[in-house]
């Protein structure tokens, strides 16, 4: 399909607000969005800025938003997307400042990566002369994170980072799990303690965007949830996050269903009775949301408890 319209976000120091510019690009079948950007750079506008290097989806340079979603430009077939959506819109990653056009300032991303202490901590006295004789399958849990190429797509589409810039974000927490789940690492407990602090695993709102957009099929959310379980197992239960999870769990196990009032009281503790929260509760009740204070025990509670126990056993098999 020759002459395809491509809209590109432009911004430079002289134009700090930025604008959208439309190009008409001759895009051939099997050409990628990166090919289209190169055509623009070489034939129409040598001022266009973007990052790229390997053009085979392994270096992570060319993550950008294409038709509203963060992807790698190099492995995104341009015409497929154009046919599906009727347009091609290329913008820089979100949640990071734009340096120029499609190139963002990645320093915020790398700061988060560094914050999780991303390197193996040796166990005192257990370092082998040659290599660790640990069966391969014990590394299997790491497969959900180890292909991460640090492109920043997940951080860009992270709905928490958008409103809470301190949040470490999916890529950094995936990197954290790469060590929490490593049988060689000697700092599992201290890692879980640190990751349980504010800005860490409990600040994720489990929206699933990170799993959804990752071009390498990494699952940061799964890693975050596994670390939450491991943190609770290791006794790191301070804060609203773990309290909420535990209260949720406890009420389901005890009553067979979610008891919202007691979950709220357990999660918030004394804060439940703060004027602000009581006012919110009152408004909620007035609007018609009235959780029952005393719920009858449902039938099949024994079955529910059996299920809970079995899920518990299964899940923890994958957590060190």
């Amino acid at each position: 399909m020759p002459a395809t319209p491509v809209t590109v976000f432009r911004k430079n120091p002289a134009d700090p607000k930025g604008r959208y510019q439309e190009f008409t690009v001759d895009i051939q079948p099997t050409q990628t969005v990166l090919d289209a950007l190169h055509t623009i750079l070489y034939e129409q506008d040598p001022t266009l800025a973007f990052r790229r290097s390997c053009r085979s989806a392994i270096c992570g340079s060319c993550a950008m938003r294409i038709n509203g979603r963060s992807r790698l430009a190099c492995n995104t077939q341009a015409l497929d997307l154009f046919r599906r959506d009727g347009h091609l819109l290329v913008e820089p990653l979100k949640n990071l400042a734009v340096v120029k056009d499609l190139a963002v300032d990645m320093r915020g991303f790398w700061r988060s990566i560094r914050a999780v202490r991303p390197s193996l901590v040796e166990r005192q006295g257990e370092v082998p002369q040659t290599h660790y004789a640990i069966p391969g399958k014990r590394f299997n849990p790491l497969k959900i994170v180890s292909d991460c190429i640090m492109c920043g797509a997940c951080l860009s589409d992270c709905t928490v980072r958008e409103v809470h810039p301190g949040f470490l974000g999916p890529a950094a927490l995936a990197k954290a799990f790469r060590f929490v789940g490593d049988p060689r690492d000697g700092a599992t407990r201290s890692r879980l303690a640190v990751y349980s602090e504010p800005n860490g695993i409990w600040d994720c709102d489990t929206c699933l965007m990170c799993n959804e957009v990752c071009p390498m099929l990494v699952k940061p959310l799964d890693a975050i949830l596994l670390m939450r379980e491991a943190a609770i197992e290791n006794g790191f239960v301070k804060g609203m996050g773990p309290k909420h999870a535990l209260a949720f769990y406890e009420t389901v196990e005890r009553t067979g269903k979610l008891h919202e009032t007691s979950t709220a009281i357990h999660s918030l503790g004394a804060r439940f009775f703060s004027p602000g929260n009581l006012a919110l509760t009152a408004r909620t009740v007035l609007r018609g949301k009235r959780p029952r204070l005393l719920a009858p025990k449902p039938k099949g509670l024994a079955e529910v408890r059996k299920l809970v126990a079995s899920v518990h056993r299964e899940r923890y098999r994958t957590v060190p």
Partner: protein
Amino acid sequence: MAVKRDILVVGAGLAGMRAALEARARGAHVAVLSKVHPVRSHSGAAQGGINAAIRPEDDWRNHMFDVVKGSDYLCDQDAAEVLCSEAAENIYELDRMGCIWTRDDKGNIAQRPFGGQGYARTCYIADMTGHFIQHTLYEQMLKHDVEVFEEWFATALVTSQGRCTGVIALSILEGRLEYFQAKATILATGGYARAYRTTSNAIANTGDGVTMALRAGAPLEDMEFMQFHPTGLYGVGILVTEGARGEGAYLLNGQEERFMKRYAPEKMELAPRDITARAIQTEIEEGRGPDGKPFVWLDLRHLGEKKILERLPQITNLARSFVGVDPVKAPIPIQPTAHYSMGGILTDLEGQTPMPGLLAAGECACVSVHGANRLGGNSLLETVVFGRRAGRAAAAYAAKASQEDGGVDALRREETRIQELLKREDGERVSRLRTELGDTMTAKVGIFRNGPDLAAAVQKVRELKKRYSGVNVGHGGRVFNLALVEALELGSLLDVAECVALGALDRTESRGAHSRRDYPKRDDERWLRHTLYTRRGDEVAMDSSPVRITKYPPQERKY
């Protein structure tokens, strides 16, 4: 204000990071400077694995023999001995650093067969071996707080009285030039297969370090030996790992014949890369591609879905995204692709060049461990073995050397050069010259070569160099000027391409990856020698040096 460090490492792939870590561990004040962020380096694209004799029934001497024979007897055998005898300890060290090797149920590091070797000694992590090692080394860089100047493009070496005293570099983000002063500079800038139209290399692999060394007066070695990887994805040249054939994949022509039986009856698909690439090229040129098209098939189907997805997940995704083929269900169309630069900056076994204060490691260097043809699985090995050695030698050198200046003039010269590029308002486009260069190299300095084509290529590259002096960047801005970066990179490519073509024309024999149709035989009497290139004014002067043979005298090479 110059940035002053004991040691400066240019390039942050595996060789650069390993060198920096070693120098840092030895107490040197070290900084790394790289065009791209370290994890974006092209080492991460290495797929299949890294060789080491680590089993009781294997021996590094067997590995060394395979290297020597694979090199068509052109490697320096003392260097090959270092490579192979230090392999195991480097693999183990990476494991202790945190590399997640694929392992068996007993915890042994798994190994797969690779081309041209008598034993299955290629350690791996699925088909993402480079990725895993690269991220492991980057983790170590963070752990040991090694300073990195990211997205700084080194444009020239600074020399003072024949000694290297650092580099001039351009900040890509800000557009300003800076003098990075160092007692020792280690170049680890990778290869230059981007000079070719069809290549597996990243866009950044433009031989900047090799060119800087040449321009500063350091000699290059064996530049004519460019490796063509047998299996690049048809049309795009993206790498499909040799590990696919290591796991048992077949090469088939249009008649679905396993044609390798006619070229390497014993090793079949696991013949060395030079022989396999020539076999594929011959099938294509003789019209035996499917419907006479310029590709052959790489067939994985009989391996089964489980093995394909477990051992070769990356190439499965690449084939799906780039050629729309699912390797579980259909064969992959492949063609040879310019892949690896065997030649490079001449160094000794410690990574030192003849120029004091200048070292090199990895693909940009020529130690020489690969000779006329590199075996798969040895490039990653070279980066860690010789990266470490270069870091060690640089630290020792820096401990005794003084800081010498000399950057003021160089900085002014580079500023003028860049100003001229930015200000020029007319002239040819960079992309046009680069396309002509790629077409020339692929057509005339490719898998099969001959005298008249090579002479024409030399002439064409020289013509392009002339035209380059009037090239038009088209953009005068300083912040993230991608067009300027590409113009500088083209300058690098033209200088290395001239050497590749000159060396190929000069070497009137066929050896390893250098295959002359007009001189089809290996000629040990005349050409069991390394080619050397040194810049004299605007010309490149050619010379040669003997090959160091310690254990295995040259024999006929058959597989």
